[in-house]
């Protein structure tokens, strides 16, 4: 079992590494927007390939371990969780790429207004991602539940940002194209937080063995 334990630890490390790449992608995509740095945005887009490679690598390793080690109980739940959460992480990486693409477009035009709520939203979403990775590593269901709770805050900000941008569009129709793009950004961040929530639900499954998906009151 020593070998299997080492294999599981190595897989855990790969997921952590993937998670940190995703977090860096979100961080830099927002930075490229706020600092109007399109070079950084292009770097985020380029780096997505690395995240995709992690996704494939982790899934292949998961399949190998299921076939060769016939995992049971917490080992089985860990492997199933690992393989499911890489899908969420990969999607988060794609969304960071989308943010970077919109940033490049927005950077071509004069700023509509200083970005305040978008970085705030990104901060909450990144906090959720980092904390859920930590909950996964430490097998901490309570921390995962805490991440799930924070999703409402992000959803609230999405609505708030939309209302604010709607006001801009009504006031000045020339702002519409930029305002719509910023609405997209908030939607991307909201989706990133949703993926963090999915991961948190899987962490609860991994630790407690119960599926809490789709059971939100």
């Amino acid at each position, binding site marked *: *079992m020593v070998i*299997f334990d080492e294999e599981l630890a190595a897989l855990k490390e790969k997921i952590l590494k993937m998670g940190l790449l995703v977090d860096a992608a979100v961080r830099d995509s927002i930075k490229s927007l706020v600092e109007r740095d399109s070079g950084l945005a292009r770097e985020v887009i380029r780096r997505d390939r690395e995240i995709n490679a992690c996704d494939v690598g982790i899934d292949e390793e998961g399949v190998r371990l299921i076939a060769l080690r*016939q*995992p*049971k*109980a*917490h*080992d*089985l*739940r860990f492997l199933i969780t690992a393989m499911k959460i890489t899908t969420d992480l990969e999607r988060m990486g794609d969304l960071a790429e989308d943010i970077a693409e919109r940033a490049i477009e927005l950077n071509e035009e004069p700023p509509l207004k200083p970005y305040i709520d978008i970085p705030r939203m990104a901060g909450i979403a990144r906090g959720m991602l980092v904390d859920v990775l930590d909950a996964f590593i430490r097998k901490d269901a309570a921390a995962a539940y805490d991440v799930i709770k924070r999703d409402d805050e992000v959803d609230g900000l999405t609505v708030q940002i939309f209302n604010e941008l709607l006001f801009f569009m009504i006031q000045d129709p020339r702002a519409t194209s930029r305002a719509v793009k910023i609405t997209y950004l908030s939607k991307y961040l909201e989706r990133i937080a949703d993926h963090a929530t999915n991961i948190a639900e899987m962490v609860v499954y991994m630790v407690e*063995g*119960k599926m809490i998906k789709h059971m939100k009151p």
Partner: protein
Amino acid sequence: MNPAVIRTEGLNAFYGPKQALKNVAISIPEKSVTALIGPSGCGKSTFIRCLNRMNDLIPVFRLDGRILHKGTDIYSKDTDVIDLRRRIGMVFQKPNPFPKSIYENVAYGLRIQGITGRGVLDGAVQESLRKAALWDEVKDRIGDSALSLSGGQQQRLCIARAIAVEPEVMLFDEPCSALDPIATAKIEELIVELKRDYTVVIVTHNMQQAARVSSRTGFFLLGELIEYDTTDRIFTNPSNALTEDYITGRFG
């Protein structure tokens, strides 16, 4: 869960001074497969052998507590042990056919019950061999010695022999440990089939086998029944840390 066909209460078993079972309480539902797992020496074989009083033959063996078969205590003075073993049959680790023909092996139990009619015996032998998934392989050489069969076939012959006397419960004590994977797969398929007509209890060291064939699994450790639950639950999310350690290979 089907109603219990066997139920034990406060079962303690001893070999001389050594206690082999400690306060075992279990309900085995009828027409289902129940698997018992645990490391060597955990008491699972002792337990299964109590269920048809195979341990009676061991002089230093002693038992207290109760084993109820359909509500009747099988260790009560009135129990006809021969009849009990007809109703609760057993298949062992190593195939143990009698050095007789295939036909006579299966007919043996019926003959000692005094059944001699050729037609009745022929019918019962054929049906038992069919149920044991052996008929097609032996129908043209039913008079040959049982010892000419392969290990896997011999084990299915032993199952046919047990089936022939129409038991209610069939106990399997490591039935595949002497067989290759293909013969094992055949026996496992057969065990799953058998639960339509019989209650099956199987002791196995092979956890994958327990997972494949059973609907409930009991985990024994040092004579105690540590956990007993649906097989799904035992293998995905057991509630006891000792069960978890055992099935994930962290000890034992």
